[in-house]
């Protein structure tokens, strides 16, 4: 451990293991400004704002310099200030300064620091090149003209999520943060987790707002507006109003009522249904030799990731819809009928800590009679904005309870908001289910906390059940590789994409760092501790509705309405690779998939075999061959597409036969002859 003493601005400070000067200064109450330093990410050292003067060394970047015994550090000299001001001025010059209309206004770090350092004038010309804004994705908007190239998004996507949707492209003053080939965000492997938005210091990456859609529904007298609120929202919303989480739940319900929604229900209700269905599914698989490990399916970013990257594991995913979608399905299919409305006249708004939920709500399978089960997804921040827009003084609201019957939730459902919560809920349910009433409260500490990978074991009817809980998709990938390599086995794996779980979601307020997440997690568990309804099966309304509307848990009713299926999904769009001068226009079009899954299974060799066969049989000019990126059949072996027909499971053994029976036979020798 790094030890010794340094002097910071005249104050003698013990180093005590501090990684760098910046962290050490924070410990003694000196906030050194920075754009690109995040303790969770690798040190990048690019913004140069954190430079300090060290005697005998001169100016050094405090984020990347370790304190050394005897160092004398000055954080606020004339030279340091001059540098910081100019850096801010330079960044402002190249930044689209439309601050009043920017959704990051007041939370923008660039704006904050400009004020803090008294930068009141920009002496340089404006940004010379306007780049197009990308609004293609359901969750995230990218405005490159506001990007300051700190690289936080690049690193969070690579290091925390292991995806690497963003990277730097070009160089020098032309440098941009970009997707592959500058494609639309909706055309690449983005899972919509919003972690890039959470770390972006400016308005370059923002959440796509659905506030207007919400207002429109609320103001429409024809519509019954139902709101559901996810667990992690209530422990973070207070931050938007400078409050801790005490009474926030009740005030939040009160605020929504004032805003004018018809019913305020709780996603906790859906979460309890999820616990029950998922636990039953697990026990069924356990008993009947079903696919294990069972991966949880609540996190839509994880689901998209799994569909893109691990098509061979889609059968491992729990077929349960997420709490949001269970709730939506229940509202549109059953609640609407109960109140005598058509599904399209009941508007389901969900309030989520999450940006990926916006994407999930748009998945075509989550509809009833052609209308989406969840119509509008608002983030915690969007809800706060609506409350402010409505002129509601949040602090002064009197707490109100959720509406019944769909407003009741257990502590188990509450802890869905924190990493480990779903696993613990299942543990609680199974303990109660197998152990009966006398089990009482079950607190399962090994799966709690912010740690990236957690492991635990429980005994169920003489079996040892191994559980893994991961948060952050990079951690998930590490765990999956261990499982695939046979280095580890689990019965249940809970995956949440955001660090800390949903409390750290991309839709949460302003400062969304480890400290904030840890605090929210703590609050979730303290709310759970006082909740009388402990386990999912203790929620009497859930039990009743499962019986009344679905014919009981794990029934064909729940199977139809509360479960779902997954399909492989391509990671990137783009044109195929031409293999035999395909532009000639032969009569049969053959595409061999060279996406990751098929590539790994040897689609390259199959492609060559096809090319060979075309030559051998003299079909050159009649068969157009190309390599395409993903036919979205990744779980079924090498896939090819012949005209409009997809053939899967092509191997070196059957390739010749398939060629003859599916390709050669279709050739119309009249074309191109």
């Amino acid at each position, binding site marked *: 451990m790094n030890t010794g003493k340094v002097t910071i601005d005249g104050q003698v400070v013990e180093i005590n293991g501090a990684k760098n000067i910046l962290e050490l200064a924070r410990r003694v109450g000196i906030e050194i400004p920075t754009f690109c330093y995040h303790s969770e990410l690798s*040190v*990048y*050292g*690019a*913004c*140069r*704002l954190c*430079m300090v003067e060290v005697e005998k060394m001169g*100016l050094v*970047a405090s*984020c*990347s*310099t*370790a304190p050394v015994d005897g160092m004398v550090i000055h954080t606020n000299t004339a*030279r340091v200030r*001059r*540098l910081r001001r*100019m*850096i801010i001025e*330079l*960044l402002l*010059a*190249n930044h689209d300064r439309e601050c009043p209309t920017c959704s990051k206004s007041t939370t923008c770090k660039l704006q904050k620091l400009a004020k803090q350092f008294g930068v009141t004038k920009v*002496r*340089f*010309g404006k940004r010379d090149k306007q780049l197009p804004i990308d609004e293609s994705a359901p969750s995230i908007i990218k405005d490159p003209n506001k990007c*300051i*190239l700190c*690289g936080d998004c690049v690193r969070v996507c690579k290091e925390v999520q292991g995806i690497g949707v963003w990277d*730097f492209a*070009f*160089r*020098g*003053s*032309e*440098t941009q943060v970009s997707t592959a080939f500058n494609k639309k965000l909706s055309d690449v492997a983005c899972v919509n987790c919003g972690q890039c938005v959470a770390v972006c210091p400016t308005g370059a990456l923002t959440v796509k707002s659905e506030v207007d859609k919400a207002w429109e529904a609320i103001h429409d007298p024809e519509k019954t507006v139902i709101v559901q609120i996810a667990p992690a929202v209530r422990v973070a919303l207070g931050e938007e109003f400078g409050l801790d989480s005490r009474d926030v739940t009740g005030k939040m319900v009160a605020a929504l009522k004032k805003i004018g929604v018809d019913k305020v229900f709780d996603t906790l209700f859906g979460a309890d249904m999820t616990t029950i269905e998922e636990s039953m599914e697990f026990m069924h698989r356990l008993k009947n030799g079903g696919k294990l490990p069972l991966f949880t399916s609540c996190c839509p970013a994880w689901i998209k990731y799994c569909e893109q990257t691990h098509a061979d594991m889609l059968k491992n995913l729990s077929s349960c819809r997420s709490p949001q979608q269970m709730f939506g399905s229940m509202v549109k299919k059953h609640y609407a009928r109960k109140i005598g409305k058509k599904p399209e006249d009941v508007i389901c708004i969900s309030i989520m800590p999450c940006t990926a939920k916006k994407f999930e709500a748009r998945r075509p399978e989550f509809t009833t009679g052609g209308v989406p089960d969840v119509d509008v997804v608002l983030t915690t921040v969007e809800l706060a904005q609506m409350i402010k827009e409505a002129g509601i003084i949040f602090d002064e609201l009197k707490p109100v309870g959720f509406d019944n019957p769909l407003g009741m939730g257990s502590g188990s459902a509450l802890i869905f908001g924190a990493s480990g919560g779903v696993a613990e809920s299942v543990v609680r349910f199974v303990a109660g289910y197998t152990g009966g009433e006398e089990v009482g409260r079950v607190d399962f500490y090994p799966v709690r906390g912010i740690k990236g990978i957690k492991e635990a074991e429980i005994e169920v009817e003489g079996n040892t059940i191994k559980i893994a809980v991961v948060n952050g998709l990079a951690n998930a990938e590490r765990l999956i590789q261990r499982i695939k390599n046979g280095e580890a086995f689990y019965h249940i794996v809970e995956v949440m994409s955001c660090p800390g779980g949903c409390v750290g979601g991309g839709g949460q307020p302003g400062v969304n760092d480890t400290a904030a997440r840890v605090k929210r997690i703590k609050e979730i568990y303290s709310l759970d501790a006082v909740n009388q309804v402990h386990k999912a099966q203790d929620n009497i309304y859930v039990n009743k509705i499962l019986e009344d509307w679905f014919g009981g848990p794990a029934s064909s009713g729940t199977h139809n309405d509360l479960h779902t299926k997954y399909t492989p999904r391509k990671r990137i769009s783009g044109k195929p690779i031409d293999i035999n001068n395909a532009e000639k226009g032969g009569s049969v079009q053959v595409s061999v998939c060279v996406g990751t899954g098929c590539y790994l299974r040897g689609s390259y060799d199959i492609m060559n075999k096809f090319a060979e066969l075309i030559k051998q049989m003299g079909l050159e000019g009649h068969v157009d061959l190309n390599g395409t990126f993903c036919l979205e059949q990744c779980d079924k072996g090498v896939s090819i597409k012949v005209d409009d027909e997809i053939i899967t499971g092509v191997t070196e053994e059957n390739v010749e036969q398939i060629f003859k029976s599916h390709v050669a036979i279709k050739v119309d020798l009249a074309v191109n002859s």
Partner: protein
Amino acid sequence: MLKTREDLIKLQEKAKDALRKEKMRILVCAGTGCVASGSLKVYDALKQKLKEKGLEVKVELMEEKDNEPCAVNTSGCHGFCQMGPLVRIEPEGIFYHHVKESDVDDIVEQHVIAGQLVERLLYKHPVTGEVAKTQDQVPFYSKQTRVALEHCGRINPDDIYDYIAHDGYQAVAKVFFEMKPEEVINEVLESGLRGRGGGGFPTGRKWQFAAAAEGEKKYVICNGDEGDPGAFMDRSVMEGDPHRVLEGMMIAGYAIGADEGYIYVRAEYPLAVKRLRKAIADAEQLGLLGENILNSGFSFKIHVKEGAGAFVCGEETALIASIEGQRGMPRPRPPFPAQKGLWGCPTIINNVETLANLPSILLRGGKWFRAFGTEGSPGTKTFALAGQVAHTGLVEVPMGMTLREVVFDIGGGLKKGKEFKAVQIGGPSGGCLTEEHLDLKLDYDELRKVGAMVGSGGLVVMGKDTCMVEVAKFFMSFVQSESCGKCVPCREGTKRMLEILTAITKGQATEEDLKLLEELAYIVQDGSLCGLGKTAPNPVLTTLRYFRDEYEAHVRDKKCPAGACKDLQDYYIDPEKCKGCGLCARVCPAGAISGEKKQPHTIDKAKCAKCGTCIEKCKFNAIYTA
């Protein structure tokens, strides 16, 4: 395959023998410059002609020949590229320049067969008219002291035996069998060798850090990403004496305990890559690279990595990122590469020229090296002499030689009709110096004192018609386009500095802009992440310091004193001189010139693009600017 040190010594004897048996050796320069001037044609013609004449011709040193053969070889760069193609004939060191294919007959018949010098191909002093028979008598060479360039132009770079005949690989043999790693480091410390790539950091010190760093795996990287516009010494060494670079790396590897090395070569140097690859293959074949070299217990392998066109990769950490397959963006230091470098392992990065000095230092001792140069900057340094100087090319001189000696004695002063104004030294990281600095001793510390840098040793001489603001703008535009874009001061700062400089050269800048330029310069210097950014303002700061009046003239009077900034002048045709030939009107790309045939023409100011084509074309000097 050489298995022991004795094997190497025996081979050296054999190679020297073969050398002695040569009746004559004709070295045709095959450096990039001479190749461009057609030297390979000369080489082929020579071989052809000699054979025709029935002479025994030898192209490889170790070729078995009965009689005393005449060797014909290509060599690396001689440095005097402007005079190429160059031919040197051993043993006397006769020096022929501007040799064309058509001169081959005379060289063979007159020189080789009849023993008579071909007078017209010898160097003749432009002023005194004195004829130099040998290379050493040419003033361009006579004042040089060659250590790193010792073999450049003297041996066949593609022939490992030629290198061995010239004491090649003797230094590593000595090091492996007679010295401990720390003794090697001490010898290098004793020599006082400093990094030749620009920074001038003591090489031995760098090695000490890497040797002390913990790690099973360590690397040596040879930095051949020579990107300074106007410098090409590393290219010449890699092309002209590749084995020397390998030997230097092996010495470094032995000293720090590394068993693997990379040579990172600019993409723009395909010939260097080819020669290095061959040198490595040849050394491996002989057992001079690989496992347990000469049974010393020391193993070493070397890879060549080609750059892909990014100046910033000359910076150590960016270079490492590039070898690792990433964007060449520098990383914050600490940790220094000596502690955590390539793939997180302790790594030393030495420049080509630095490494090329090592075999001589280890063979002859640090004290010997120290005898050259100055107290603080021992040894010799290569400079690439370019610009408006009479003799351009590559020179190696002892540190501490004055600028005057280099520019006027070796470089022969300015080109005809030009008058000395300034010299830009050290490329985009360096500075511009004036007449008052001509007696400055060229070494690391003296140059730093006046705001310039040795840099990689580019030395561009400029005449009175060069605008110093334009020069500063040129360098700024270079670093601006080569900035990696990572840190704010460099990315945004250089961009804005270039904007201001451009405005100045267009006469659109104000006094405030000038102040802002200076303010920015200090910020970029202070705040940038890597050396590229930190030194980027040097050309601006030195020109502001020594040529401030020129800036002020552009800003206040909207005039360019050197008459170089075309936006600040108008073009006129002197009716007295114009004969109305119409040539200017025909070549004018903007169609701005008109006039009746045989009548004085005129220029339409509004249309004139100020490109200068008309001035160049006018046979009567009738067009002028003001």
